[in-house]
């Protein structure tokens, strides 16, 4: 590719304005990643507060109302501020390079969808300083606790959710347009890497789900301020309807946060097993099936709301079905490892532990799907353990794996492998000390979202909190490793991983500011395809 001449004229602008005005997918990808990382640290700080209060029985550090504010904001910041933006950041960085496109299809909108985020996040966080405090009704904000009984700051929360929704929808439109219109002409859909496939499918989930969330918060807004009664039984409304609307968004949302993770892992495992991905097309079909099923299982979050038995039976069966395509994925990953020639650099360690720990979260998910058993699990720490296994050791794990895997391509430099391994073992041990005892707490009967507990739960809470502090501290090391890589890393080669496949590895060691100004040839696409 003869891009040297072009680059000369279209390099990045200097100074701060580069980041404000940028329409370059790599710049915007970096902005997303740094924003997500900042939010991860803030949401993590809230979690440290929660675990500190739960370290021992009694109220030592905070009032119950503030505890509820922390759990609420921890959930909201982690879901909307950390995990989702991090995946959009990865998508921005990687998708154009992976499909041989020069940039995203709608670069100006791309700038906008990022720059909405700091404002939305800022508005959300500012509610802590308002009279009456931040929202304290849980990240699921069930009415009427979030309408009639909520603090005034709730209206700012609603505005922030609207903004976050705009940003996500625009991001999704951009990814769909890029994949479908900007893909190298010689690249067929079934040549696309799995990260691109999973993100394409995720985008459709976003476009379907986010407007429903916007509808839910708009109804809240009018219930709170304009005298409607969507969720108020005294005016003919129904609080359970809120939950239907929320989970019609909320369940696809869960898969929005995990499908791109499946994509990431499907890149890393073949690379370090030095063996092609097993069952490429079944991976694509499984992803699509999971996405479809995610729209028809929402009420399994609501088994105790007083649903008719026929409804419970249907949602139980539909939920159990999800185990099938998810199982296919796990079996495919294990088959990819089978008779490979494996090495265990940091990205592979994170990917393998993803498969192991995410599957544990899958098993507890299967248990939760059994409607009668859910009676005893619902709203206990068993649920907390379950969704942290799929979201922390699932979604977050894949983001960290992806960061180590593609960091050489983003920076042109290698991270410190030794430190990265230390960090991995530190994180993977502490995260299990943190979350595994929560299964026991839940089964022994500890409800979630309580600031204090009876003495029988003291020991496991103590262990869990110690794990939590250790896990929280591991992010200091992660920050150091990433900054150290950017500043002092040794130069990386264009393809730093022996078994890596994909168009992005054909670029310069540090991917040039403008890549694929001419689309890759069929020959190159075939040589780099996962579907070989």
């Amino acid at each position, binding site marked *: 590719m003869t891009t040297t001449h072009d680059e000369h004229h279209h390099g990045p602008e200097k100074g701060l304005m580069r980041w404000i005005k940028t329409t370059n997918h790599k710049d915007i990808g970096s902005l997303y990643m740094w924003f997500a990382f900042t939010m991860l640290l803030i949401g993590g700080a809230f979690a440290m507060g929660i675990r500190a209060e739960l370290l021992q029985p009694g109220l030592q550090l905070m009032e*119950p109302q503030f505890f509820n504010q922390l759990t609420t904001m921890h959930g909201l910041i982690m879901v909307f501020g950390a995990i989702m933006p991090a995946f959009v950041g990865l998508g921005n960085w990687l998708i154009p390079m992976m499909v041989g496109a020069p940039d995203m299809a709608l670069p100006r909108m791309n700038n906008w969808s990022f720059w909405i985020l700091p404002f939305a996040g800022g508005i959300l966080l500012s509610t802590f300083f308002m009279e009456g405090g931040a929202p304290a009704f849980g990240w699921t904000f*069930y009415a009427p606790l979030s309408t009639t009984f909520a603090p005034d700051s709730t209206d700012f929360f609603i505005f922030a959710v609207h903004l976050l929704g705009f940003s996500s929808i625009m991001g999704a439109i951009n990814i769909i347009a890029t994949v479908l219109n900007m893909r190298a002409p010689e690249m067929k859909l079934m040549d696309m890497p799995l990260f691109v496939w999973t993100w394409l499918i995720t985008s459709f989930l976003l476009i379907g789900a986010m407007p429903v969330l916007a509808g839910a918060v708009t109804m809240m807004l009018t219930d709170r301020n304009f005298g409607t009664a969507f969720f108020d039984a005294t005016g003919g409304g129904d609080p359970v309807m809120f939950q239907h609307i929320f989970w019609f968004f909320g369940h696809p949302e869960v898969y929005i946060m995990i499908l791109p993770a499946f994509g990431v892992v499907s890149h890393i495992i073949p690379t370090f097993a030095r*063996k092609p991905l097993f069952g490429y097309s079944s991976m694509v079909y499984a992803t699509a099936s999971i996405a479809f099923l995610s729209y028809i299982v929402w009420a399994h979050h609501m088994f105790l709301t007083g649903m008719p038995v026929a409804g419970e039976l249907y949602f139980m069966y539909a939920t159990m079905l999800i185990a099938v395509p998810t199982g296919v994925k796990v079996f495919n990953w294990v088959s990819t490892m089978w008779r*490979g020639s494996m090495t265990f650099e940091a990205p592979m360690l994170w990917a393998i532990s993803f498969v192991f720990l995410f599957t544990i979260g899958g098993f507890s998910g299967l248990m939760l799907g059994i*409607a009668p*058993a859910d009676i005893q699990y619902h709203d206990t720490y068993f649920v907390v353990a379950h969704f942290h296994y799929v979201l922390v050791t699932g979604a977050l794990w894949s983001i960290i794996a992806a960061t180590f895997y593609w960091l050489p391509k983003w920076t042109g430099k290698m991270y410190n492998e030794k430190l990265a391994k230390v960090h991995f073992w530190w994180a993977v041990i502490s995260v299990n000390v943190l979350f595994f005892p929560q299964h026991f707490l839940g089964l*022994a*009967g500890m409800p979630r979202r309580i600031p204090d507990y009876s003495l029988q739960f003291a020991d496991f809470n103590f262990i869990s909190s110690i794990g939590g502090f250790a896990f929280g501290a591991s992010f200091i090391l992660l920050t150091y490793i990433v900054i150290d890589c950017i500043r002092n890393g040794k130069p990386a080669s264009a393809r730093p991983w022996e078994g890596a496949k994909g168009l992005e590895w054909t670029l310069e060691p540090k991917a040039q500011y403008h890549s694929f100004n001419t689309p890759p040839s069929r020959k190159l696409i075939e040589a780099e395809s996962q579907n070989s």
Partner: protein
Amino acid sequence: MKKLVVAFGLLLNFNAFAEYGVNMTEGVTSVSRDIYGLHMMVFWVSVAIAIVVFGAMFYSLYAHRQSKGAVAANFHESTKAELVWTVVPIIILIGMAVPASKVLIDLEDTTKAEMSIKITGHQWKWQYDYPKEGISFISNLSQDSRDAVNGTDAGRENADNYLLNVDKRLVLPVDTSIRFLITSNDVIHNWWVRDFGVKQDANPGFINDAWAKIDKIGTYRGQCAELCGKDHGFMPIVVDVVSKADYKKWVVKQQAAKAAVVASATKTWSKADLMAKGETVYNANCAACHQKTGLGLPPVFPAMKGSKIANGPVADHINIVLHGKGAMPVFKILNDVDLAAVMTYERNAFGNTGSVVQPSDVKSAR
């Protein structure tokens, strides 16, 4: 540090876990036993699948590594394998779905009930009504637990069943099919007694039902299981299950006590008696928001000390307590004596200088 030692001691001694609870318990109803059975079945199926999948994975991680000289194979597809690991899980799932459906249909069938209890969630207490027997009362977190929350470790250890004890327990007969009618007065709560296998949302404006036939006399404890605001963690449930004969005696006693209250509502109470009773009622029902000190938690929960309402006309005071306003709940559920006492207390404690409220004042204002 002592805790740390205990924690690691626990890890070494698996038997000790039994005491601290690592698993669901069987409970004391047919439903709770069925649920436990399902739970253990799915658990062991998961363990079996985990052994196969993780076994293959860890073997591969051990055997197929470059450092052991493994050379990568190149296979990447097998329709046969894909079919097997699609069909086998479906069969396993059907095997689990059949018993699960049976249990579900059984536990949703409340038509066999011999008696009904109405349970109403309030922020942050439970109200129990026995419609046929005409008994109705409120059940609050017991005072010693409430005091221990911000107290010392020793205080919590000395408190009777810290955070899992109430001032007035729900009493139920053994071996009787009981239907619970569950609703709420404000936000969504959830009435959960693990040993009964009953956990049901209490939705404002709607009534949900559940049932239990408890086959063992004893005391059973539970908690609210749906985030319902500030004191969600402080509204426990305690149920005394007694023999049918004892239950009948209890009902008679309650009805007599109720008649006595009605009678005492007609007499004129002394200020001292009202103040003494009022303090108890205040601490149980009002202190969660307005605080024991009467200082409240402004701006949401106003102070009692120096309050315009507590120092103003009696009629306004009765009105807001009876009918609520905004975050202030409706307290019609308390009897005339309790209401008169608590208002007298509010009007004369904390340095307030309001008048005395008599039960008859409350009665005529209803």
